[in-house]
């Protein structure tokens, strides 16, 4: 799974969000490193919806502006959990090797 996709799923993990909300959340989580553009975001949302990981939640009009919210499906939560576990394992393996190389590394 690509980093941007992982971050979109993570952004939707705690609550339903609209497009711009997802972009902001992803930017915040990645420390401003991943800046999603609308084309990429909606393409990813289409793909995740087709895969049954994300679904449409509700539509709101706030100050005359259309907001369409998306939420994580049950399969999306499972996929996010499995990807998180995979990344944790990889990170642990990398940390342990680095620690062996340099015992002082925290």
């Amino acid at each position, binding site marked *: 799974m690509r980093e941007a996709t992982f971050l979109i799923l993570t952004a939707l993990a705690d609550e339903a969000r609209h497009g*711009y909300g997802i*972009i902001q959340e992803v930017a915040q989580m990645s420390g401003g490193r991943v*800046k999603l553009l*609308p*084309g*990429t*975001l*909606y393409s990813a949302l289409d793909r995740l919806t*087709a895969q049954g990981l994300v679904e449409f939640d509700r539509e709101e009009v706030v100050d005359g502006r259309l907001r369409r919210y998306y939420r994580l499906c049950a399969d999306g939560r499972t996929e996010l959990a499995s990807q998180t576990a995979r990344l944790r394992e990889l990170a642990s393996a990398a940390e342990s090797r680095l620690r062996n190389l340099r015992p002082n590394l925290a």
Partner: protein
Amino acid sequence: MHRWLLLSYPRAYRRERGAEILETLQDIAPQHRGLRVGANLVRHGLRARLGRPASRSVVAWAAVFAVACGLFAASFGIWVAWLGSRPLDHHELAATVDQLYPGEPVRDIDRQDPPAVFIVYGSPLSWQSVPSLLFGDGGEYEFAGIGASFTRLPAVTRQKTLAQLQERLRAAGWDFGEPIYSNSYDCIPNDPRCDPTSIPSDITVYAQRGDNILEVHINSDSTTPLMSLGMSRATPWAAYPAGVLAFLLGTLGGWVLFGWASRRAERSHAVAQALAKFMFGFAVVLWWVSILLSVPHMLTHHLQEAHYRWHPLWEWIGQPVLSLPFLFAWVVLILAGGLIQLPRHRPVDRKVISP
């Protein structure tokens, strides 16, 4: 501007998501450069045209189809540009022969202009020539040319004739390449009677001046005529922009056409969809087999000898030699397109009739 760029998305998608995307674009506008956002929008819009958002292979198939369409369109564009090239003039040939070999008795010289830019067996393309083109004689579709031949060599020997020709071409302002030596005839390799070293060779010199190309053959003693000249037209400058423009339009058209079919196939019956996919794959393979068989052959040919005029693009992609499989693939594609248009069977709603 973004509203215009949204045109890269299919119409149904724009109706459903267009307003939402525009709102998000407005939100991020202060933080991003417009050009990058626009390019990203067009890229993903073109992807959205293909439908099947979870599929990766659909992009590969679309690319293969679109590039083939681009190559066919570019060939057509170049062909159209060629039709606008300056017609060959037999007076120009006569003047050239007279300038290179004044007073030399000619055996034969064309005294009429060719009937068309391209000919099949000496005649312009017509419905009568279609069977020849389709059934194996596609290679006979070629550039028209005019020519002249001499009864004897203008100099005593072939080497002296060659040296004299080069000298006179240079003096007359022709740009010419290295002479090409080729066997007058072939013999069966490994046959005891076959001795390639004893086969006489023919000499060919290509030259160009302006938009005229001259092809001079100095033949061996066993060949008649001993010397001949052919004049044809150089590639018109309009062929290059026409080819590039037609390639871009053809590729875009192919992508849009594929997207249209792909989105409809998504909604069609599973059996029709599977059959249409198979037919599409078969047709595209048929196209690419023609292209991939022809390209190495043409590339080898071009690398072996200098060309003042490259063979036209359609010959590189196997046309019209392999026009039968090309047209057959189109028929298969049209049938596949019809198949995905068939209405999907839906169970009839049963009305509950209360007693």
